[in-house]
């Protein structure tokens, strides 16, 4: 049984559907990447998991349970955390407070979880008393991911974590993703930097115009010329 599965999901924000029969799955411990041209519905697919979309048909299952149309906070408690693309930290709160907010729904001792985050992202330990808004772009992404990790999720959703970052940070972010995954957390990631993302992915999906187009291992998709051209249409 897959950790997460989307079966033939169709839906959108208003009357027009943005997703058409989207099907994808994430196995436990996998890195799965969704790539595709802008406007392909990649981020929308993620929002569907978080119950932020009106679904007309299809089913979303997580860890053996039907979570179709659940509210965001319920999904969070169930073990899926989401890192938005922008505005993903609380700028006036310190790094440590940002992490605490990630664990808001927890009532037990959160120190071990925080310790794990600091081990994963050593720069954050030094800056833990600094306001998140004053950090560099890469460090902010660490805070954003760390905040999401505070609940010990089984699955982490990342929406274009490298958007707007310079190449050095991009490499750093992909390293971090690998590290997080190494702790056993499944990762579903939407990414623009298809090459690098597919290079670290177990499997990938190519979406275009709100539907699945290709599916395969990272290496297969990378080698596929058709996939590359899809980005530029024609």
């Amino acid at each position, binding site marked *: 049984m897959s950790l997460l599965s989307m079966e033939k999901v169709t839906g959108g924000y208003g009357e027009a559907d943005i997703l058409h029969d989207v099907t994808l799955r994430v196995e436990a411990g996998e890195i799965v990447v969704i790539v595709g041209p802008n406007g392909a519905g990649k981020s929308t697919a993620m929002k569907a998991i978080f119950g932020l979309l009106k679904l007309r048909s299809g089913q979303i299952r997580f860890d053996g349970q039907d979570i179709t149309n659940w509210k965001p906070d319920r999904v969070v408690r169930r073990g899926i955390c*989401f890192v938005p693309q922008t*505005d993903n*930290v*609380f700028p*006036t709160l310190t790094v440590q407070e940002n992490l605490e*907010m990630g664990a*808001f729904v927890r009532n037990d001792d959160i120190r071990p979880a925080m310790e794990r985050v600091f081990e994963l992202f050593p720069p954050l330990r030094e800056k833990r008393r600094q306001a998140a808004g004053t950090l560099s772009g890469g460090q902010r992404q660490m805070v954003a991911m760390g905040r999401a990790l505070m*609940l010990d999720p089984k699955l982490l959703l990342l929406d274009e974590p490298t958007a707007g970052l310079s190449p050095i940070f991009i490499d750093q972010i992909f390293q971090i993703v690998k590290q997080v995954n190494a702790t056993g957390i499944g990762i579903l990631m939407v990414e623009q930097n298809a090459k690098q993302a597919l290079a670290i992915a177990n499997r990938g999906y190519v979406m275009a115009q709100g539907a699945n187009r290709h599916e395969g291992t990272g290496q297969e998709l990378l080698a596929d010329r058709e996939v590359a051209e899809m980005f530029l249409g024609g």
Partner: protein
Amino acid sequence: MDILQLLIYGIVLGGVIALGAIGVSLTFGILGFANFSHGDLMSTGAYIALIFFTTLAWPLWIALPIAMIATAALALAIDRSLYRWFRTRQPVILLISSFGVALILRSLVQMIWGPDTITYQTGIQMPYRVAGLRIRPDQITILLCTIFLVLAVHLFLQRTKMGKAMRAMADNPNLARLSGIDTERVVLWTWVLGGGLAGAAGVFLGLDTRLHPEMGWTLLLPIFAAAILSGIGKPYGAIVGGLVIGIVQEMSTLVIAAAYKPAIAFAILVVMLIVRPTGLFSGRSTV
């Protein structure tokens, strides 16, 4: 009068304004609207304390907390019965509603306690004289209590989970929701904190001067000025803003008639709006 003497009065008044401004600042940051009923919430708190403080002759350290709790409960009740329903609509509707609530509170106070000026205690307090300066025992009480409350608010916002969640929600409401923060509970605590402080501010204002149904409304402008001066939505700035407004208001009596004290707050506000018109409501879109 001596400048130092005015400074003392200014600090006392500034503390009262600051307590009010923290509440205004919090409700703006978290709920996104300028609460026009905050001044009258203060008056209501002051009058509630009258029951315990004067009628029942309980000591201040009992009467004050009771008044604060009662005012917080009142603020919460208003939110549950009215503001909650307007939250999904435009913020301006909340503002108009709060303007109405201000009048409802004021008329309730008038109906229950009458339109005349009242004092907490009869008799005249003998002021202490230190180096030619006069300071009344009440004023010392006000100052100490204000410092205590501001410290308590500071610790609450910095140390407790709910306090941090309040700051988080003022920062980024969407991310707060995605993090699983129970936003309705944050709203609840915002009213409890803002209402409680308003109650205290009202009691202190009553101690410093006298009780009158319009006492809070008159102070609303200085409170807004203090909140805006420091950047609305920033509770710490409100303390500085309150002190500045309070001191400048008292000092202004050296130059202009005392009756125009409230106008000083407005003058500062206008200067602020001209000099630093943008960035005050930083990060928030214009309506």
